[in-house]
């Protein structure tokens, strides 16, 4: 008998978890209403009391860490494969590589006015603008937060592992000055047209002063990379906004600088237009 009741209670808990109402469960078991109702009410009361929503920023930080870990796994997987396997086991790669080589050769011999022996160079009439912005999280904790960027990299689409890299013209950005939709242009020039899939910035230094005006904070430096496909097209200027954010790391008192994939991305304007804010 107790066993039957336990099974009935169990089934009602499953049904309520699936979104059914208490009343619909009780209606199906009139013989147990007296015992069931108070227990299921206690269940609902407990679920209601604990129905807190985790903070959006905590969830976002955790998601970013998870995405970064996923990307690293994929990167390691690719690095582990021997060159022989990578090349000879995939006929499609040969075809793609041949097409890419042909396009590059055509560009090399006639269609490109410039070569890039050391990477793209700045040009005020360029087809690509790189901007930095800051998604507001813990930035209000800071009076100033200076991020030094020593390198920018763009990964062309396809199977190319050859990054388009260049140094920013503006090498330091104070993130407190570019919150939300504000941006700071740090490079403008020409990059090869085509599809790109990933972007990185290399942060060489991060120093901040907290809002108390006294406390200096140092954040870890390093490469911040995002997977964000975009295209650089002819006759247009592509503005790419790379959004970073600073978040507090739990209760340790430390801060972390994180790229914000969702807030980053490219838009296009006709050539000879000014770079616009995000």
């Amino acid at each position, binding site marked *: 008998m107790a066993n039957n009741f*336990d099974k009935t209670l169990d089934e009602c808990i499953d049904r309520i978890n699936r979104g059914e109402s208490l009343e619909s469960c009780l209606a199906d078991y009139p013989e147990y209403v007296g015992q069931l109702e108070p227990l299921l009410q*206690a269940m609902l009361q407990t679920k209601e009391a604990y*129905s807190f929503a*985790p903070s959006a920023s905590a*969830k976002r930080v955790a998601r970013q860490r998870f995405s970064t870990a996923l990307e690293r796994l994929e990167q390691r997987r690719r690095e582990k494969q021997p060159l022989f396997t990578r090349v000879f*086991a995939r006929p499609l790669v040969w075809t793609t590589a041949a097409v890419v080589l042909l396009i590059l050769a055509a560009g090399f011999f006639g269609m490109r006015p410039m070569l890039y022996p050391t990477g793209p160079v700045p040009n005020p009439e360029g087809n690509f603008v790189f901007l930095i912005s800051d998604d507001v999280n813990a930035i209000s904790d800071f009076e100033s937060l200076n991020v030094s960027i020593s390198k920018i990299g763009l990964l062309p689409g*396809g199977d190319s592992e050859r990054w388009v890299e260049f140094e920013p013209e503006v090498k330091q950005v104070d993130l407190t000055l570019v919150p939300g939709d504000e941006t700071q242009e740090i490079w403008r020039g020409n990059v090869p047209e085509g599809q790109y899939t990933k972007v990185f910035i290399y942060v060489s230094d991060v120093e901040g002063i907290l809002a108390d005006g006294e406390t200096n904070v140092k954040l870890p430096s390093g490469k911040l990379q995002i997977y964000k496909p975009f295209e650089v097209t002819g006759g247009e200027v592509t503005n790419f906004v790379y959004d970073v954010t600073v978040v507090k790391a739990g209760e340790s008192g430390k801060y972390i600088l994180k790229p914000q994939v969702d807030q980053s991305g490219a838009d296009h304007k006709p050539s000879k237009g000014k770079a616009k804010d995000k």
Partner: protein
Amino acid sequence: MGAEAGNGKTETRRCNEARLASLYEEYYDKIARYVYVRIGTKTEAEDLAGEVFLKALESLKSYKERGIPMQAWLFRIAHNLVVDHLRKASKRKTVPIDTVQIESDANVVTLAEKNIELERVNRAMEQLTREQKEVLGLRFFGGLTSKEAGSILNKSDGAIREMQRAAIAKLRKLLVTDY
């Protein structure tokens, strides 16, 4: 992403990674609530919920769906992390501080009532045994079935059903008398 001939294991691993990623949005919240019920601090519950997904990614190569879906496997990881956390916490003296965020003046009264109710339910939950809290955490907040909860806690479905009935009955009694 380019296609890869890849061996079978790599493809299975990739599929599992994609499945895990697709569970993130829905299950982060559920896991955070489950952990919160067990450890009582929201910020630590949020941190641990993030750890669960990272741990799951590390352990994916050992994951095989043998009658336990990935969602339930996540709760097994959460359970283990909570056990670990509670063991470490018992060795050090900590004072958990949870800040109450007031979103607008209009919510102040509701928030205060909610906090009072939460404290009341918390007091009642504290008087359950560890196993009872585990069962209710998995059943109420994880949404797991008795069978899935049993596989995580190494108990039969029958034992889980019995425990949950006893736990809810005790909880009910405590809530009624604590008014």
